[in-house]
């Protein structure tokens, strides 16, 4: 009898546990369906609205919600996609491919779509629906830019004054005499900076411009992928990909130090600024511009004070690939005019665990950071183990805002396009 009661109790407990587990699984499944596997602050939802091939990089969205995507690898011999949700079910099922070049940069403004290959910048006139009128005949605005494999992509953004800003990444890690060679010193008066390692400014209404027609707007930037124009203070902001491999000077830097140095920096850029690459790097612990070992640095000596300071210093090597100032009204007040940064994720932290694979947020007021940065959307990697191993499922790259104020994030590993929304 006693035994039977016990067994009954056990059964009730078991069924409760089972019911609990089922409920938990249901909630987990449901919440996963509402977040597409991402973790975000309360009230935010996410879904994958499109799956593409060709490794989508930067992204632009029309006023009616059509999506343009620049591809890193060709799909059906084309490097640009327009995605449409014609049946209005929230999935972008219609894909139109055009443009016979790969690249990263893409920007939409005032009825023109701007896109870059790794050597040139093109412009497409749009019709009243913001659809490309002549996909096979874009205007060539800029051509002949330095592209030597490394840091070859040309990110771009416009100001409100008829200018386009184009990143020309340095085809080098740290301007060594022999790139990435153990102990190789820096080239004196780094010649790379004459044609790369900075942001160049061109006109949006002049064709076939190159170096003679352009202006070196800012220099000393190793490679910039994420950049945006801050409408509040009418100024350019960029995210630099910081230098790799301080371990090439093993007597000064071990792999643990290399994993944490230097900071990934956000800079506010004014005409004529010099951010200091390859001569200095920013140490987020000493909060100083430190002389690079290729130029006589020892991890402590400070570099020239003429170089500008970052406005935000993020952890090392996380590879910021997208920057977007949020000007929408859907998200809570704290996000208004703040910066979202898409981190592609690190590789140069090995053998230490890799980091990144998330979208960060920095609150801004009047064009200046007004608080600490925070992780906004995480979980792109699929699991902490996949992130640590540097083998994530998804890698955040491009950012754009939809007409309703939702945030779009591209993933250039598997080709997902995420839409992140907020429900009051």
């Amino acid at each position: 009898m006693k035994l039977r009661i016990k067994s009954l109790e056990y059964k009730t407990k078991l069924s409760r546990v089972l019911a609990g587990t089922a409920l938990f699984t249901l909630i987990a499944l449901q919440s996963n369906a509402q977040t597409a596997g991402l973790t975000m602050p309360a009230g935010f939802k996410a879904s994958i609205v499109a799956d593409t091939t060709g490794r989508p990089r930067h992204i632009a969205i029309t006023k009616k919600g059509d999506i343009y995507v620049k591809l890193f690898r060709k799909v059906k011999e084309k490097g640009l996609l327009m995605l449409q949700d014609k049946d209005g079910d929230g999935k972008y099922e219609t894909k139109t491919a055009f443009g016979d070049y790969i690249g990263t940069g893409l920007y939409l403004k005032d009825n023109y779509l701007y896109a870059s290959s790794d050597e040139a910048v093109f412009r497409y006139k749009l019709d009243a629906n913001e659809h490309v009128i002549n996909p096979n005949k874009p205007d060539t605005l800029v051509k002949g830019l330095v592209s030597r494999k490394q840091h070859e992509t040309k990110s771009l953004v416009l100001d409100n004054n008829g200018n386009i800003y184009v990143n020309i990444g340095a085809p080098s890690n740290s301007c060594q005499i022999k790139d990435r060679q153990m102990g190789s010193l820096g080239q004196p008066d780094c010649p790379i900076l004459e044609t790369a390692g900075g942001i160049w400014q061109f006109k949006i209404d002049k064709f076939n411009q190159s170096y003679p027609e352009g202006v070196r707007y800012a220099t000393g930037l190793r490679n910039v992928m994420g950049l945006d124009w801050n409408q509040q203070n009418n100024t350019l902001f960029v995210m630099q990909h910081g230098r790799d491999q301080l371990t090439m000077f093993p007597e000064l830097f071990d792999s643990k130090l290399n994993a944490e140095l230097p900071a990934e920096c956000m800079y506010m850029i004014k005409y004529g600024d010099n951010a200091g690459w390859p001569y200095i790097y920013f140490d987020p612990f000493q909060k100083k511009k430190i002389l690079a070992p290729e130029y006589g640095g020892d991890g402590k000596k400070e570099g020239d004070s003429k170089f500008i300071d970052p406005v935000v210093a993020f952890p090392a090597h996380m590879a910021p690939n997208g920057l977007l100032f949020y000007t929408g009204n859907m998200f809570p007040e704290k996000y208004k005019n703040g910066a979202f940064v898409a981190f592609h994720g690190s590789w140069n932290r090995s053998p230490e665990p890799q980091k990144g694979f998330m979208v960060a947020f920095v609150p801004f007021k009047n064009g200046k950071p007004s608080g600490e940065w925070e992780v906004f959307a995480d979980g792109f990697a699929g699991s902490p183990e996949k992130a640590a191993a540097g083998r994530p499922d998804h890698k955040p790259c491009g950012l754009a805002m939809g007409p309703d104020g939702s945030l779009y994030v591209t993933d250039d590993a598997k080709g997902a396009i995420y839409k992140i929304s907020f429900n009051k």
Partner: protein
Amino acid sequence: MKRTTLTLLIISIFISVTAQTKKPVAKKPAAKASTASAAVTPTVMARGKVVYNMYCISCHQPDGGGVPSMNAPIVKTKQVLGSKPALINIILKGMSGVDIEGESYSNVMPAHAFLTNQQIADVLTYVRNNFGNKASGVTVAEVAAVRNKK
């Protein structure tokens, strides 16, 4: 039920015992590693791993998979498993702009001629027999022959 457990236990003990007794046997060729034979021994593999972790791991990564679009993978590629002199030359002279299985990689592989012939033989033997690779070892003599050719 119990019998199966017991059988399994006996089998596993047998395996672990044979594995243990095998170890010293495997060690024998290690002494000859630096001579003509290209033996893939635990000692050579251990030395190769030290070199790999010091000079290779940051780009090629702990699993040898490299970094998409940036640093080449070294898992079952023809460069790693193919001609030994060509592979030795990649270490001595570096490599850049070579597509691997249709994918391009943007970063340069710098020359590692500063490594000793022993270090190169060890690390290549390690790479050719790790990350799912299986191929003959590389000897000091083979590295020396390529280095002295110039």
